[in-house]
């Protein structure tokens, strides 16, 4: 691989920030889940980059990345299931309409 670690980490940080912004700013539950995926993938990118550039982690970064993908997939499944369940109840995907957790 060419280039240096910093470029990858900057890209990863940017992607994570975009994901965070999306999670905090979007009101649609589906979009929020997509933002979460973005954050997870930003982290994955950072892990793979570390795995390539740090000699002590040689080859192990990819393994961690695979685990993260699997967990992310499971998380997305559960998250979507919850969103659908709430949607059926409330007839809206907008999270600021869901305030029953307050009570």
């Amino acid at each position, binding site marked *: 691989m060419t280039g240096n670690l910093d470029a990858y980490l900057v890209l990863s940080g940017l992607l994570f920030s975009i994901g965070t912004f999306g*999670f*905090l700013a979007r009101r649609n539950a589906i979009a929020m889940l997509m933002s979460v995926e973005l954050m997870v993938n930003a982290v994955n990118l950072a892990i793979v980059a570390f795995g390539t550039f740090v000699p002590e982690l040689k080859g192990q970064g990819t393994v961690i990345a695979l685990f993260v993908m699997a967990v992310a997939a499971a998380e997305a499944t559960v998250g979507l299931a919850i969103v659908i369940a709430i949607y059926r109840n409330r007839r809206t995907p907008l*999270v600021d309409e869901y*305030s029953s957790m*307050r009570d």
Partner: protein
Amino acid sequence: MDTGSLDQWLVLALLGLPLAGFGLTALFGRRMGTKAWIIAVAAIVAVWVAAMYLVDQTLFQHAYGDGGLHFRLYEWIPAGSFQVDVNFGLDALSAVMLIVVTSVGMLVHIYSVGYMAHDPGRWRFFAYLNFFMFSMLLLVLADNFLLLFVAWELVGLSSYLLIGFWYRRRSAALAAKKAFIVNRVGDLGFALGIMAIWTTVGTLNFGDVFTRLPQLLASGGIQEWQMIGICLLIFAGAVGKSAQFPLHVWLPDAMEGPTPVSALIHAATMVNAGVYLIARTNPLFAEAPEALVVVAAIGIFTAILAASIALTQTDIKRVLAYSTLSQLGYMFASLGVGAYVPAIFHLVTHGFFKGLLFLGSGSVIHSVDEEQDMNKMGALWRRIGITHVTMLIGSLAIAGIPPLAGFFSKDEILGDSFKNGFIWVWGIGVVVALLTAFYMFRLMGKTFYGPSHVDPHVEPHIHESPKWMTIPLILLAIAAAVAGLVLGLPFDGGLIHQWLDPLFSATESVLGHGGSTFQIAGIDGVLILVSTAVAAFGLFAAWRLFGFFGIGPQAARVAAVTDRFKGLYTASKNKWYFDDLNDLLFVRIGGLLAAGLWWFDVHVIDGTVNGIASLTQSSGRGLRQVQTGHVQNYALGIAAGLIVIALGYIVLVTR
């Protein structure tokens, strides 16, 4: 069980009959209407018969020996080392008390049939009266301190119920409360005394306490001050119940109750409980002569204080109430100087003549349409002849005119005070005898002999009381006339001495009294002459001022004497301001203190507690705003926290 068995049942009957009478009258009395008295009076007559049999067995047949009849009914409190039985004792002292309690009790019950005939609450009255008889008999028969204390409180309760019998009248309700509360002060001391006895000897039975406590003192197990302390605590109870200074304030107010109650409870029986208690615990007081001096001082001070107040009161029952205080003071003085037998002797005679005087005053009040103010009476002696004659006998008896009952007992008290070396008690006692004769014949003069001040509307209706009331009066008058002769002659060796001397001889020898013999031609004759002369002087002075059969009253001279001693007169009229002093000390100053403590409680103690509560509440309410329920707010919080941690880490690491 041998011969005692039947007698034990009779002792129990003394308690069971009035209790059953109380229960039945309370349950069915209302339905019996005007006949509500039947059960109660029957119960007391039966009690009187049983009591007279037991008195005969104890005092005349000596069936139980000198120690008396003692038996245990059942084990009451088996709590580890704290063991109390329900046990009864009948000795000479109890028997003498039985004579007074049951005789006066029976006559008052009979009298009440007439007196309460027009009162719709008569069933309640008779139920309470029977309940009182039960409590009082329990008091004289109890053979341990705890049972005595229970009876002590029960008589206090019945006294409260009967003072407040006409509870719709505010003054009666207040007087009942006052009696109960003032008694609590003394009872606190008594209760502490009982606890002190238990912690030192570990038993409450009279016999055991009276032998073991002096032994402990002799062997150094307890100090002398502990003995004196125990005696003074017991005396505190007696001061409350027998209305001695400074707890004397409740008794005059107790006159708010119906007159038979005043006669029975507040003159003849219950108020004697304190005297009985000190006499009963005489082996303890023998070891604490300092406590006895206190008893004598309080007694004689109460005697002169109350006599001086009785001089100016105008309510006929209040004069008698202060007279009762004064005579009780005599009894305590007598106990204090170590003259136990004269004290009990005076208790007996006083029970008869004061019961008589109160019942007589009730008859007077009845005849003038429930008027108690002596300034609205007068010239009644022709109109209510029987009441007049019986009251005259009672007054002569209390004044100490021979050969009536009061003369014998009072002279023994004064004589023994003198001979036992308490000259000051004797001196004050003689002055009290003078005052007694004076205020009694002031009462008689104002009521019976002076010009009539009866309300003109009432005047035509003045009538002698029914037979229910006059017969008890006559019987009591006979008792008041002859009790002294029967019990007191020959001097220092009469029946009362034969009965009671064995009981008190040990104590009297510990105190070093009782050795002297009676000399009618010597010192004793002189003492008798002095006190009789003094009483006669008081009597004649009162006749001159307030009238007697042939002697007209001299209102002008009375006014002149009153004017001359204006300060003393108003002080006496206002009862030496004791009620005002109590009002100032306990109601005003005590009230202020209590208000201060109340403020502290409300603002500091409650303030702290409430402050913590409201702080928690308001902080909770504030923090609740954070909990919006919007998932993105939470996420923002997480993100913000993450940023803070990350920045903090960077700052710390790169520094």
